[in-house]
């Protein structure tokens, strides 16, 4: 089985958020991590590899620095890594990103593509489903459990207060939730191997069946009008009361604010 996992290097929000003058994120100035939903997707792929045997290829589109997240994935157990990077791909929204990833993945053989549900820097949840449309394969989103059944996958899809059990023939695409699993750590030896391993670097010329008009900032229908860091909350009020008094106090406050 061949599994492609799309991962994204995202700002580590613990380290603070910084913007460029045009409102886009200043990624170069921020600490980065592997997007949590993507990490769960990678872990799901690695578990399928452990259980059924599989070759896991990780793909990311980003700055050359995004190589770090690919090496982290290899140190966790991914077999191959592809970095799609090119100046013309910069400023991509979800449409241009999914077009780019589709153009890259058309070079690869795959039974299963796993993406995270959404990235913590954009929160759109669009790239995975769009990618499946471009590649013309089924998609099951919000996966909280994945099993292989012959040439199909059986997936529990999270849905409000319940979950749906869906079956799809492979090749197909699954979007994973961070709650899907607890991702494994890298191993020290895995890190040393990953740092020596080759990361395949592709640019615009390697993308298959993608129009220039669908790439980068120019190919992005979404334009950012304004972006800002979240408004910092005030210090709040600290009170020291025993549990019974606390309940009365909180209920009183909620009534005062007409919440209840």
């Amino acid at each position: 089985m061949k599994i492609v996992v799309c991962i994204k290097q995202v700002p580590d929000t613990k380290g603070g958020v910084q913007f460029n003058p045009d409102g886009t994120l200043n990624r170069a100035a921020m600490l980065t991590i592997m997007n949590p939903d993507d990490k769960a997707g990678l872990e799901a792929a690695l578990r399928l590899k452990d259980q059924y045997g599989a070759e896991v290829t990780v793909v990311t589109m980003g700055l050359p620095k995004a190589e770090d997240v690919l090496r982290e994935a290899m140190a966790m157990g991914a077999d191959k890594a592809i970095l799609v990077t090119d100046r013309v791909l910069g400023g991509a929204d979800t449409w241009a990103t999914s077009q780019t990833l589709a153009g890259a993945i058309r070079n690869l053989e795959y039974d299963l593509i796993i993406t995270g549900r959404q990235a913590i820097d954009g929160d759109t949840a669009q790239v995975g489903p769009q990618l499946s449309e471009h590649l013309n394969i089924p998609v099951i989103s919000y996966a909280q459990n994945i099993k292989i059944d012959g040439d199909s996958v059986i997936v529990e899809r999270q849905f409000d207060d319940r979950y749906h059990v869906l079956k799809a023939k492979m090749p197909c695409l699954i979007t994973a939730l961070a709650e899907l699993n607890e991702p494994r750590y890298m191993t020290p030896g895995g890190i040393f191997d990953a740092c020596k391993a080759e990361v395949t670097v592709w640019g615009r010329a390697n993308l298959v069946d993608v129009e220039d008009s669908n790439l980068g900032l120019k190919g992005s229908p979404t334009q950012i009008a304004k972006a800002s860091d979240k408004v910092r909350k005030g210090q709040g009020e600290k009170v020291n009361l025993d549990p019974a008094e606390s309940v009365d106090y909180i209920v009183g406050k909620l009534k005062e604010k007409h919440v209840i």
Partner: protein
Amino acid sequence: MDFTLSKEHEMARALFKEFAEKEVKPLAQEVDETEEFPRVTVDKMAKYGFLGIPVPKEYGGQGCDPLTYVMCVEELSKVCGTTGVIVSAHTSLCCDPILTFGTEEQKQKYLVPLAKGEKLGAFGLTEPGAGTDAQGQQTKAVLDGDEYVINGSKIFITNGKEADVYVIFAVTGTIEKRGRLMKEISAFIVEKGMPGFSFGTKEKKMGIRGSSTYELIFTDCRVPRENLLGKLGQGFKIAMHTLDGGRIGIASQALGIAEGALESTIAYVKERKQFGKAIGQFQNTQFQLADMATKVEAAKLLVYKAAMAKATQKEYGFEAAQAKLCAAEVAMEVTTKAVQLHGGYGYTREYDVERMMRDAKITEIYEGTSEVQRMVISAALLK
């Protein structure tokens, strides 16, 4: 000279730090209070290869360099000195001598499961009458047919009851050296469960309270002849070589404890208010922190230098002794200052620095006291 870490080492540090924060730190206080060996953590460390970091891959290890191992013990010790010493004793004192002096059969039988973390290792040199004076050994091993029969006891053994494989030293005869009759010491690999091998009392300690420190008792303990480690009579050399590596491990533990105390103190002095402002705004606090941080950095450079010496030099005892002497004394000084800067709260078990100060003390004592390190260093200077 370039002091920047390689990509591999940066990633390894990030891994150890994340693991320590998520898996080790939440248990540190409980491990100290209950004196329970953190088996759950050890099992997790085994799963991720932390118990075989500097062991070559062909023997089940991770194939990394000593610096990676040092950073692992350092990051673990930042949050829990107990967990740091478990890894250090296992790796430096048990895996290393088997890797260096073991036969191929011994490596396959013992080193592979140790490096994979399927088994835990320990080292038994110290006896009631043989601490710094390792020649004072009383434990004896006598060949009887195809087995050595060991009698005696070892004390203060880290990982004592929890280990599966032990590197044990015993007197196997006498030799004449420069006209003096000396004890001939040899090393043996002993397995838990071998007939005649049992455990004595568990030590109640000031610090590193979760590490399982036991007395090992050998009563006509029969060990197969092929478990002789190295050559007959090579024991003292094996012990000294092993302790050189062990000192780098303990220096890393001391460094980690000092760094942990410094980090806790920096956070505390920003929060704690007296006379209407954070105590970090007082010059006394600032100067104390500056001294602490500078000493920690100096210790770190010596510890990393010793790790690099182990990677590139045949002999590294001098570097190891300097690293351990400095890191241990810095750990004691920095943790003491950390408690002082925490004031009354620092003296309570509610704050980590109280535990760190107790954990730091042992680093000036075991794997060669600070006085022994000074002997090693000065002997090299006056040679």
